[in-house]
């Protein structure tokens, strides 16, 4: 159909927020031959949350952070999650003096969220550490695939393994600490033969203690084998895993958590899938940094959360950029093309795209990245940039908007210099901001004098 006015689909692409994720109707998954409906739209009203393991899983993939670094990261993470505690919890090792000192200093900041929890092995003696640290909850490693039960932990039988795990859970109850059972390697486990009976037993044990001690279940996709596709088989099917625990073992959604790994590039979508199928909490790390290929990226989960909720919900997305700058400053490498925080995540190189940006930044920018991340869209200058790319760079460099923007005619000397770099000097690399800045001073001295005070 012809139209005289554009339809920019702003119900879905509001620009002031990331594109919203909207659902039409329930989806159907066949489980044990039975059609089961899942109403994804209900996620908007569910109390879904993010948890964090930057200091535990995230730290297993790098040299240790210093105490000061962790306190700074925790502080920024609290700002990011906002007063509603969208980032509800983060977990700490408790084994060394530095571990415990870090925990104390983070708590001394006085933030309500993220709540601090611990992480220990499935050893009864380790609860002393949790208790001494004054924590209300701790993760407990309860690996559940036979790879772990027999090959790694050398149990003689599943029954022996389950008994040992349950003894540890009893010890947690006795210490007044809520155990969060980490079902390690669940996507490679015998679901009917071990996982469901174990979780049934945990729920039975939980029914004997006050609610605040009842067991939480973390589904750990340790090797990234989880699959989001409808129709996939157990144990790899995330929908079926969550349904079985939620509906057959009666683990409430708010006591279910998904912990993924990125070995097959599925980590972010798998986390979102867990939310949709009834697991309230997705466990993440900052910038996805974690064991081997990493975990669901916290900042990705944040934008997924906003997209599902259609609202910022108190989240301060600006803190993401500050966290990235801080992580870079302490030596964490973030690839230039990494979403939301890489140096070039919203940088376009093609001149024809730069022309689009010049006309309306929404054409080639995913959302208002300046408002939400303090990162206006940029162009990188190469032989493909053309005069449109150069003029966009200059305007962005000086921070000029609307009527103040310089037109292409005024930058012709700079555009000529750029083109000659490639046509006359056979250059093969992109031109750096520093080179362009020097050339702006030389070739556009009037503009330099006029606007240099506005440079960030």
């Amino acid at each position, binding site marked *: 159909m012809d139209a005289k006015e554009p339809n920019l689909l702003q119900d879905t692409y509001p620009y002031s927020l990331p594109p919203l994720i909207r659902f039409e109707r329930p989806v159907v998954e066949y489980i044990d031959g039975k059609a089961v409906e899942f109403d994804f739209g209900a996620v908007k009203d569910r109390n879904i949350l993010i948890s964090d393991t930057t200091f535990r899983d995230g730290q297993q993939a790098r040299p240790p952070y210093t105490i000061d670094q962790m306190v700074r990261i925790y502080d920024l993470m609290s700002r990011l999650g906002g007063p509603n505690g969208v980032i509800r919890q983060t977990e700490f090792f408790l084994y060394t003096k530095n571990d415990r000192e870090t925990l104390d200093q983070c708590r001394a900041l006085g933030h309500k969220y993220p709540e601090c929890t611990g992480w220990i092995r499935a050893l009864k003696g380790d609860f002393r550490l949790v208790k001494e640290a004054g924590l209300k909850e701790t993760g407990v490693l309860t690996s559940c695939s036979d790879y772990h039960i027999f090959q790694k932990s050398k149990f003689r039988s599943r029954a022996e393994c389950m008994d040992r795990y349950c003894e540890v859970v009893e010890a947690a109850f006795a210490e007044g600490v809520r155990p969060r059972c980490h079902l390690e390697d669940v996507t490679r486990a015998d679901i009917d033969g071990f996982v469901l009976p174990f979780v049934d037993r945990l729920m039975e044990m939980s029914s004997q203690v006050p609610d605040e001690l009842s067991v939480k279940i973390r589904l750990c996709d340790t090797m990234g084998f989880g699959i989001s596709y409808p129709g996939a088989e157990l144990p790899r099917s995330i929908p079926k895993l969550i349904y079985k625990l939620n509906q057959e073992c009666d683990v409430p959604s708010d006591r279910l958590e998904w912990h993924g790994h990125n070995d097959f590039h599925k980590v972010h979508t798998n986390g979102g899938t867990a939310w949709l199928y009834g697991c309230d909490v997705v466990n993440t790390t900052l910038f996805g940094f974690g064991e081997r290929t990493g975990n669901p990226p916290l900042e990705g989960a944040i934008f997924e959360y906003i997209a599902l909720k259609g609202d910022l919900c108190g989240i301060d997305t600006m803190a993401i950029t500050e966290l990235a700058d801080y992580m870079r400053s302490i030596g964490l490498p973030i690839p230039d093309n990494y979403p939301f925080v890489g140096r070039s995540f919203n940088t376009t190189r093609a001149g024809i795209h730069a022309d689009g940006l010049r006309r309306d930044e929404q054409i080639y920018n995913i959302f208002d990245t300046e408002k939400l991340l303090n990162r206006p869209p940029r162009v990188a200058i190469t032989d493909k940039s*053309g*005069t449109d790319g150069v003029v966009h760079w200059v305007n962005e460099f000086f921070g000029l908007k609307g009527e103040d923007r310089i037109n*292409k*005619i*005024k*930058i*012709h000397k700079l*555009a*000529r210099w750029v*083109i000659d770099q490639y046509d006359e000097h056979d250059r093969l690399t992109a031109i750096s901001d520093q080179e362009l800045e020097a050339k702006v001073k030389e070739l556009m001295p009037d503009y330099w004098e006029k606007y240099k005070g506005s440079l960030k």
Partner: protein
Amino acid sequence: MATVEERVKEVTAQVLKLNPDEIKLEDSFTADLGAESVQSIELVAMFEEEFGIEMDEDAALSVETVGKAVEFIAQVCEEQGVDVEQ
């Protein structure tokens, strides 16, 4: 004083590295004289400098031939009070 046409042809020849005598009023800057994208911008910038005028970017860049450029520049000069030889 040279006419607008002569000055336009002189600037065009200089920017596009051509002989001014070979430039005709009906010549298209791009199709006949071979102006590339950046040269179109340079032409507008040089016309502004030559005549001491400011031209609207989109309007100036939409001018296709030398003859139309002469007319456009003469009109802008008149609007901006710049004396030129017709």
